[in-house]
């Protein structure tokens, strides 16, 4: 896959959305949607593993810098990126044409949502574990994880539709 200007624009738009819109958003104290992992999820399946991890590290660190939580997003996002190849293999998404990435048209809504949902769950559970770190109890951490996960997944699917509306334009 060639890097097009469109990809760079998507990268920055999602990053800015996360920092400026979703980070300050705090519905009823539980819900903090994190959609930026989508940028790592959307990378091509055949991308080199080391590049995937480095990109995840850079992205996680830049989110950390903006939220003042140095290390937490970095850890959670790299954790997610590290498990991405295995999840793709389990959902038999790894054997694809070169440059293919997850999209609704090719893989269907259910598979796309499962893939994104599982990876977002991994990211969220790691992040909220680190954030609350057993201080406010496991149940509170899990409640925050699932409440936020629901919103993150919802917004991610909408973003996915916007980014890749199903027309075969690649």
């Amino acid at each position, binding site marked *: 896959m060639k890097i097009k200007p469109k990809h760079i624009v998507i990268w920055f738009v999602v990053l800015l959305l996360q920092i400026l819109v979703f980070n300050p958003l705090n519905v009823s104290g539980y819900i903090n949607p994190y959609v930026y992992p989508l940028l790592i999820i959307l990378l091509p399946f055949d991308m080199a593993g080391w590049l995937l991890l480095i990109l995840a590290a850079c992205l996680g660190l830049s989110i950390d810098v903006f939220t003042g939580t140095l290390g937490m997003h970095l*850890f959670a996002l790299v954790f997610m990126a590290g498990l991405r190849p295995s999840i793709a293999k389990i959902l038999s998404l790894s054997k694809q044409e070169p440059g293919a990435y997850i999209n609704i048209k090719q893989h269907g809504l259910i598979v796309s949502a499962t893939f994104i949902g599982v990876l977002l769950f991994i990211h969220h559970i790691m992040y909220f574990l680190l954030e609350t*770190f057993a201080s406010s109890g496991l149940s509170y951490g899990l409640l925050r994880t699932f409440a936020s996960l629901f919103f993150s997944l919802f917004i991610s699917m909408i973003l996915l539709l916007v980014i890749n509306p199903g027309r075969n334009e690649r």
Partner: protein
Amino acid sequence: MYNLIKFILKYHFTILFILIEIVAISILFQHNKYQKVKFINAANFLTGSVYQAQSTVTDYFELRAINQHLATENARLQGMAEELNYIEVPTLYNDTVYVNDSLVIDTARQLHFHAAKVISNSLSKPFNTIFIDKGTKHHFYEDMGVINAEGVVGIVRSVSDNYATITPILNRNFNMNAKIKGSGYFGNLSWDGQDPNYAQLTDIPNHISPLQGDTIISSGYSQIFKEGHIIGYIHQVIKVPGKSFINLDVKLAVDFGNLNYVYGIENKIKESIDSLGFEN
């Protein structure tokens, strides 16, 4: 070497993954004090509860020794109480009062002793650590001096709510100022990691000639230990050829192999002195 490179190439993804995660965790702990404290708390809780469980069993085997120990200490305290009575009586009835040290009263008020039980201890490692069953809830804090009835034990290294770890004299990181009782000469007390019965006092000027058996006490130059806590007794004087210093082998007063109860010295004015130090 070739195999190593092959290994790294084969598992580069996993290696890189683990490496980045380790970096992330270390950044996390460095910059987020809360997580760091929580982690130390959790770690101390785990080690603490394991050692406490072990201790509840082994305690019964040591009851006789502990009783003996407590009786000895009781006797010593009794003696001290008698001495105090002896001093106080003349102050009530005589016109003239001799006060050796006008700070005595203040010293008594600023120091509080908190007893703690040793739940784990080691002797054989270069970096020994003592675990005790008291923490911040019981007024223990970092850099607190710890003694027992016999003498100086160590310094509190880290505390959680209910447990604390102590860096004893028998730890290569341990360092304190100590002096020879009755002379003003002081040196640096540390442990060479060899014999758990002996520590080393270095940098004593060689123009004085201490005798075997002389008492080594804390110098009082830091607020961790006041002056006069017994550390040990000179066992051997070692002259270093060509140097203007001598080193002393100190037989430690505390029997680290048989450590049951220790006392943390809470120093009420340490904080104010520390803050003065920062301001200057």
